[in-house]
């Protein structure tokens, strides 16, 4: 039972990270109907920038952990958002009315560019950082096994919940959110009614990338390392989460992320750790076949 609770905690923390990445997928897919294949690598880039800015800030003698975290958060979000904006501007916007394979392939190319850029500029080795927020609570201590709830896990979950609330508010209550929903339904009509479609799509990418960078920071804090290849698998899993939750739905993305995180953690805990990715990918296939609209998604109507 204690083991079960421990795995539950770990799974929720991991799932929150996937959920944050999944929001980026779900927003972009909702608005322009393409899988932003490079999004996993945007998450990786966010993690790298967090790692670098953390090192630099610490060497400047800033020792207050909350201040460092806040600065890292701001720097990483701003820089990664710039990456998201640039990627959309360079690789996707010229292809918006091209044939259907083109944006997908361009996105795959962009994914290679990002991961190999990180490899070339920062080296291929894994980058370990010392624990940024050490410690935690011991919830239960019976016999040899104790259930740990670390501060990092609390931060991860709280951040996800807060960001989900903020962005749900933005999408449902603000001008930008209304523009986004308008573009999602009909870009031409939205443009005719005075919505700046290009700007709205750019903002979607900026928000998605900023959230991915937060996920990158959480990953860095949780696992204490980043490497240039982490974006690929995390990206596919987050996409699975977005599909599972119902593409286009923000709470769905986080819900899907939690489901994937929990399944992965329990699979590793009770079955075999080697096949945890196989489990995640199999879920993707099964979900797409039996539940293509996801848990909170709306059915797509087939039109001639």
């Amino acid at each position: 039972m204690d083991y079960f609770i421990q795995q539950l905690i770990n799974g929720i923390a991991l799932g929150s990270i996937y959920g944050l990445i999944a929001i980026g997928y779900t927003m972009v897919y909702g608005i322009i109907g393409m899988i932003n294949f490079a999004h996993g690598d945007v998450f990786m880039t966010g993690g790298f920038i967090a790692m670098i800015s953390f090192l630099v800030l610490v060497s400047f003698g800033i020792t207050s952990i909350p201040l460092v975290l806040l600065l890292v958060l701001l720097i990483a979000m701003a820089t990664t958002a710039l990456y998201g904006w640039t990627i959309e501007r360079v690789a996707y916007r010229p292809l918006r009315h091209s044939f259907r394979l083109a944006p997908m392939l361009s996105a795959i190319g962009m994914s290679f560019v990002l991961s190999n850029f990180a490899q070339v500029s920062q080296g291929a080795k894994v980058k370990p950082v010392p624990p940024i927020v050490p410690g935690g609570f011991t919830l239960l201590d019976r016999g040899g096994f104790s259930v740990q709830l670390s501060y990092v896990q609390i931060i991860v979950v709280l951040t996800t919940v807060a960001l989900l609330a903020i962005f749900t508010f933005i999408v449902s209550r603000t001008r930008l959110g209304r523009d986004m929903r308008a573009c999602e339904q009909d870009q031409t009509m939205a443009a005719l009614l005075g919505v700046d479609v290009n700007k709205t799509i750019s903002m979607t990418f900026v928000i998605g990338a900023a959230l991915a960078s937060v996920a990158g920071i959480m990953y860095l804090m949780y696992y204490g390392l980043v490497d240039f290849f982490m974006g690929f698998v995390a990206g596919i899993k987050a996409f699975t989460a977005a599909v599972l939750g119902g593409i286009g739905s923000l709470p769905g993305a986080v819900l899907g992320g939690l489901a994937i995180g929990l399944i992965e953690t329990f699979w590793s805990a009770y079955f075999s750790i080697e096949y945890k990715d196989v489990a995640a990918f199999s879920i993707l296939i099964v979900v797409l076949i039996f539940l293509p609209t996801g848990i909170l998604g709306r059915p797509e109507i087939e039109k001639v």
Partner: protein
Amino acid sequence: MAGSEHASAAVSARPDFVFILKKSVLSAVVAFGLFLFMIGVRTDAGSNGELVYWTRFADLATIVSIVFVGGFALELARWALGRGQIAVAMPPQLASGLQTLRRALAPALLGFALLVPVMFYNQRYLLDLGILVLTYVMLGWGLNVVVGLAGLLDLGYVAFYAVGAYSYALLATTFGLSFWICLPVAGILAAFWGVLLGFPVLRLRGDYLAIVTLAFGEIVRLILINWQTLTGGPNGIASIPRPSFFGLPFTADEGGFADVFGIEFSPTHRIVFLYYVILVLALLTNWVTIRLRGLPIGRAWEALREDEIACRSLGINTTTTKLTAFATGAMFGGIAGAFFATRQGFISPESFSFVESAFVLAIVVLGGLGSQIGVALAALTMIGGTELFRGLEQYRMLVFGFAMVLLMIWRPRGLIGHRAPTVFLHQRTMISAALVKEGHG
């Protein structure tokens, strides 16, 4: 885009330097923001294992100024091109000459391919490169059946390549079966896996199909890594038997190929033999594809690519159409995989990563979906390109990624050409894959 409107308005007498300067300064500022941490600071593990960093502001400055100057030059070039936009009509003689050239291209390429071992007999490197190119030509043609003809975006094609390679490797090392028996078996097994993948994804389209096939490819690779007792795990399978010349091994001793034919032994014999084997296999793929394209099933593939709903309304069985496309493509992938295994003599899961799938897909798209000659030329271009960048080993994938993005922007329909349906009404209506969004009719 406000920029292009502005630029086209400024096509007049002289470039709008203020606008161009503004734009390139903006690009430079963005580049500075992007690269400040990733290039300006380099991190690495220090002597005690903890991370240390040092700055590279010179590199950062170089890159930002390259972006600035490049942006400036690009805008100037755009202005110059926009100014000289006069439609040049091609003289009819030149056009017909180009037509003849196009028609002569395929036989010329075939003749060249046949003569490569004769011309470059002493250049081992070129022969190896030729084998590599032909392997990718075959893979490209195989994937072309799925993506180019049937219009099903498959991102996990490498899975079938892997199935073929491991089938041959396991059958040959465990049961000692010969290459020529294993080749069709590998093809059949891969086709079986193609159907296995095809069944669940029958209802999916477009991007969803792409991501499921990608997941399938990754699952196959992960199983190959983790099923250590069967596949040897990450270490792979070594000492896979080399193919023999219909029973005659390529060895120096008695009874070998050289001995029987009474010629001096040379290791090149085997390379040349392998070259012709893959050439024949690739041509077989091409021949089968061309023949299938004329049959009802090939027509059904093309109809499926153009419009799935119309296809179903006309009574075409989309289930069998999709499954045969997957199976045919997979079979060729499997055969190519078996050849790969026997050529390398060693295989490991590393050879079957997603990058490989993307590479083959890039060949098919670059060649213009559905065009056979286009795929062959694209394979030549892609392998040639990566060989050119071999010196810049670590930048190779970076260049490949950029090339993919730029190609999509520049020629999304492929470099060489695009294949129209084999049959169509004499009055062509405006229906093509370009006009019909998939999943919407």
